[in-house]
C-alpha cells in the first residue's frame, strides 16, 4: 500500500571523494543511482518516496567541481557551485549579469545557499529559470563518464523533456556553460504568484543591437512546455528592425501567438501566453533603455 511519507525509503549512501571515484560508482552500479548535490529537489522527492534510488551518491566532498569562471567569452560554472556563490560573484555580475538575475528568482536565500547550478540544470524542471537562460544563450553542459571521458552537449540536445536529459546513467554533469559573444546582451524576467516560486512564465532575451537596429535576437520561455522553448518567429521578426517601442509591441504580439501553453489548476493557457508577451515587451523596453 502506498502510504503517506515523510522519510525516504531504504538506500545505500556513498560519499565520493573525487570525480574519478564518483564516475567509477556510476559506471559500476547496476542499481538506480541518484546524485546528491544541493539536494533541494532530490531530498524532497525522496522524502515523499516519489524518488526511490537504491544508491545515493553524494558528490558534495568532491574537490574541483565548484569553480566559477567568467570573462568576455561567458561564464563556466562548475556543477557544484552554489547558486548563492554565483549570485555574489563579481565577474559573473560584470560579464553575465542575466545569470545573476535568473538565479535571484530561484526559491529563497536558504534554498540558494544549498542549490547547485549543475543540479538545477540536471534536474531539468520545465519551469526552472536556468535551463531557459541556457537555451537563450545557446549554452552547453559538460558531461563526464569513466569510459568515454568528457563531452560537451548543446542545450537543445541536453534537455529532452520533463526531468529528462540526454545524460547517460554513467555520466556526471561537471560544468554548465553560458557563452557570450561580442555585441550580445541578455536579460531575464518572470512572473510568479509569489516571488521565488516556479514562474507562470519566465522569459530570457538576448539582443545584438548595432546603430539602433536589432541585428539578432534570441528569446526563450520556461514554464510553458516540457522543456525550454525558443520563440523563433519572435526572433525572426526582430532581426533587422529598429529597436523601438513599436518593435516591442510587435514581438509581444507574436509571442502571444507563437508561445505554446496549456491550462492548469491555477492559470489558463491564454494567461501564460499573454505573460510571455508581456515579459517580451518589458524585457525589450528595459534592454533598449539600458543600451
Amino acid at each position, binding site marked *: 500500500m502506498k502510504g503517506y511519507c515523510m522519510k525516504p525509503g531504504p538506500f545505500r549512501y556513498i560519499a565520493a571523494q573525487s570525480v574519478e571515484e564518483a564516475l567509477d560508482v556510476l559506471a559500476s552500479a547496476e542499481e538506480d543511482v541518484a546524485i546528491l548535490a544541493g539536494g533541494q529537489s532530490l531530498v524532497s522527492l525522496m522524502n515523499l518516496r516519489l524518488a526511490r534510488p537504491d544508491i545515493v551518491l553524494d558528490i558534495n566532498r568532491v574537490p574541483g567541481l565548484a569553480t566559477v569562471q567568467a570573462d568576455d567569452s561567458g561564464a563556466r560554472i562548475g556543477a557544484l557551485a552554489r547558486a548563492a556563490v554565483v549570485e555574489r560573484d563579481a565577474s559573473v555580475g560584470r560579464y553575465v549579469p542575466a545569470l545573476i538575475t535568473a538565479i535571484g528568482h530561484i526559491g529563497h536565500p536558504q534554498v540558494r545557499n544549498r542549490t547547485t547550478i549543475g543540479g538545477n540544470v540536471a534536474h531539468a524542471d520545465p519551469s526552472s529559470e536556468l535551463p531557459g537562460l541556457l537555451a537563450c544563450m545557446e549554452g552547453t553542459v559538460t558531461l563526464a563518464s569513466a569510459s568515454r571521458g568528457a563531452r560537451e552537449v548543446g542545450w537543445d540536445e541536453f534537455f529532452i523533456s520533463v526531468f529528462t536529459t540526454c545524460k547517460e546513467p554513467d555520466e556526471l554533469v561537471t560544468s554548465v556553460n553560458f557563452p557570450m559573444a561580442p555585441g550580445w546582451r541578455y536579460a531575464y524576467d518572470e512572473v510568479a504568484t509569489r516571488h521565488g516560486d516556479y514562474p507562470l512564465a519566465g522569459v530570457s532575451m538576448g539582443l545584438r543591437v548595432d546603430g539602433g537596429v536589432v541585428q539578432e535576437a534570441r528569446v526563450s520561455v520556461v514554464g510553458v512546455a516540457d522543456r525550454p522553448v525558443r520563440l523563433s518567429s519572435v526572433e525572426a521578426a526582430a532581426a533587422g528592425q529598429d529597436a523601438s517601442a513599436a518593435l516591442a509591441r510587435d514581438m509581444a504580439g507574436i509571442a502571444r501567438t507563437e508561445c505554446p501553453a496549456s491550462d492548469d*489548476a491555477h492559470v489558463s493557457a491564454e*494567461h501564460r501566453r*499573454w505573460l510571455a508577451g508581456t515579459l517580451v515587451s518589458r524585457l525589450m523596453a528595459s534592454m533598449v533603455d539600458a543600451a
Partner: protein
Amino acid sequence: MRTDTDRPGLVGSSVKRVNDPRLLVGRGRFIDDISMPGMAHATIVRSTIPSGTVTSFDVADCEALLVLGVDEIAAATRPIPCVWIAPGQEQVEVPVASRQVRYVGQPIGIVVAPSRAEAEDAVECLAIDLAAEDGVADSLQALEPGAPLVYPERGSNIGVEFPIGDPSELVEEAMASAAVVVSRRLRIPRIVPSPLETRGVIADWNPGLEQLTVWMSTQTPHHVRDHIAHSLRLRADQVRVVAGDVGGGFGSKEHLYADELLVCLAAMRLGRPVKWIEDRVEHFTATFHGRDAYHDARLAMTEDGTFLAIHTSITGNLGAHFSNVGTGPFRVSAVMLPGPYRLPVAGASIRAVFTNTTPTGAYRGFGMQEAAWVRERLVDEAARELGMSAIELRRKNMYRSDELPLVTPTFQEYDSGDYGRALDLVDARVRAYAPAPPASARIRQGIAVATHVEFTGLGPSKAQDIVGFRLGGYETAVVRMEPDGSVFVSSGVMGMGQGIETTLAQLAADRLGVPLERVRVQLGDTGVAPYSAAGSIASRSMTVGGGAVVRASTALREKILRIAGAKLEVSPSDLELVEGQIHVKGDPRTGTSLEELVTRAWLGLDLPEGESPDLECKYVHEPLNISYPYATHAAAVSVDLDTGQVAVDAYWVAHDSGVVVNPMIVDGQIMGGVAQGLGIALFEKMLYADDGQPLSTTFMDYLIPLSSDVPTMVMDHYETPAPHIPGGMKGVGEGGTIVAPAAIGNAIAAALPEIAEQILETPLSPGRLWTLIHKAGLHDG
C-alpha cells in the same frame, strides 16, 4: 501602536514575552523535541481514495512492532462525540475507524516500528484492498441530482438545514419594499490551517499504575483528555494530557482527532511510549480544514442608502462527516452577518452538505471571515450602485455608541464601543496617504476599507447550551502566593505562541503588587491546571481566562490585606500593596514586608479569626455575555493589468478590543491575523479534483504569504472596557484574519471598477484576476 489610555502599572505595558528567550535560543519543548527511553514511532495508514470500502486489511509479512487495522480499532474504541450539534443533526459521534472511507486522508490503521522510516517501510508491505466508488468534492455539485452520495442510506448529501434570525416572510417583505437590493453569490474557499508545528503526540501507558500520559500539541488539554478517556473506556483520572510549547494552532488543534487516539491505543497495546508527528503532506488532508461556503447574499436599502435588511443563504461544505464543531462556522457566519450596521431585518438559511473531502472545522475567524467578506463586499457594491462614498455609506448605517448595548436580529447582545470612531481613525489615515504614482499606466491603484464586529470569548454556559454547543463557557484560575512570596498562576487556557503566559502574569503581578519575574504561569497540564471545558479557542484566553485570573488575584490580594490589617490593627481598606510592601495608604513608613507576612501565614501564624493559612485563591469565571470587539481596516493595493499580480502597498487598522494588557502582544496578534487574512485574500485555496482527490498536498501547490508579501501596518487602538469581563478585556486573536480579506478585496475592486462586481471569490490570485481583466476587455487596444 497608539492607545488613548495611559495607565500606571503592568496592565497596558509592552513587557517582553516571558517565553521568548527560551524559544529564541532553541530551548523550546515542542512534541518532536521530546524523546523517551524505548520510544517507538507510528505512522497512520490512510485512505488514498475519496470514496469506497476497505475490503481487506492484511498485515502480510509486514515487519513492524504493531499493526492495527480498521476492524481492531473499531472494536477497541468508542466513537468520538461531536461537540456542537445543530438542530436535526443525526450524526452526533464519529467512529474512530470504519471500513467505509469517505475522504482521502481518513485514518484506517496504524503501524508502529522502532523508527518512523521503518514504520513507513512497513506500510508499503501491507496488503490493503480499497474498492473505490464515485466521490464528490464541491458542495453545490453534491446537491445536483445523481451526484454520488456520501451516505447513500440518507438519500441526499444534505446533512442538516436550518434558519437563523428573522423569519423568511419578514426578510422577503423587507427585500420587496427596498429601492435597491444588491444580490451576489460569493464564495469563500477551503483553507488549510498550516501552523508552523504540525500536530504531534507521544503516548505512554504505565501498566502498573494503569495511567496513560499523553504529550500533545493541543489548544484544549482537558477537552482532549475527556475524549481520550471516553473513547478508550478509561476513567478521566487515568489520562493525563500535557501540552508543552505549541507552535500555533489557529483552531486546528482544538479537539481530539482519531490519529492521536490511535497513538494512545498503540502505546497501551505495546506497553512502551509511541510518538507520532504529523507530516506536512498529512496536514493537508488529515487536519480539519477551515471555511468552504457559498453565500447567496442580499443587502436591501432605501434610495438614500439606509439599510433595511440583509440575508444570506449559506451552502456550507461539511466534508465527509460532521466535525466536532459541525455547522458551527456556518452558524457564526449567519449570526455575525449584520456586523456593525443598523439592520432592522437580518437572517440566514444554512444548508450543510456532506462531500468526499476532509471535514471542515475551526480556523481563526470561525465563520466571521466569511461573514465579513460577504457583508463588506455587498456594502462596497451598494456604494458603487448608489454612487455614494463607501465610507459615508458605512458611517450612515453604523450603530452609534449611544445605541449600545442592544440585541441584533440575530440575537447578539453588542456590549459597548464606538464603531464610528474606528472608521473615522482609518478614514483620517487613508486621507493622509500619498502613494507613489504607479510605475506604468498598466498598474492600477485602489484603496478601500472593511469593518466588523466580532464575537469573542464564548460563554455563558447556558447560552452555549441553547445553541447546541456542549462546551462549558466558563474558565477557572488558581492563584497562589508561595511561602517565599513568589506567585503561581494556573488556568485551563493554553499558550500556542500568542503570549498568554505573559499577559496572565501581568494581570496577576499587577493585582498582587509583585514584580513580573516573581510570577510563573503554568498552563496545559491536566495534572496541574484547573479544569477547562473549552481551552484556548474563540479568542477567549484573555477575556474568560484573564477575567478569572483578575478575580482570583483580587481575592488573594484582599486576603493578604485582611491578614495585614489584623497584624497592623488597621482596616484592610486603608492598606495598599506596593512593590512587596504593605502599608497604610500614603504612609510608607508604617507597614510590613509582604514576604514576611506570607512566610508567617503559611506557618499558620498571625492569622485573624477564621482565616485559613493557605494563600491560594480559585475563581471560576462564568461570563455574563460574549465580548464584542470591533475594527475597521483599510488596504491600498496595486494591480498589474497584464500579469494579474496584486501588491498590498499599505495597510491600516483601528481597533477596540477593550482593555489592552500588553500593547506589543496585541499588535502582534493583529499583524499575524492580517498576514493570514492576506493569505486568504491572495493565495490560499485547498484544491480538490471534482471526485474528491486532493490537488494541494504541499507548500509548492498551496501558497501562504511570505514576510515580503506582508506590508507594514499602521495601527490605532482605543479602549472601551468590556462591561461584563473582570478587567474589561475583549478578545483580540482573530480580528485581523476576519476582516483583512474583505479590505483587500474591496481595494482590488476599487482599483478595477470595470470588474468590481465580479470580485466575489478568493483567492484573488493572478490566474483569477487576469481572466476577469481579460474578459472585461482591459487588454484590448
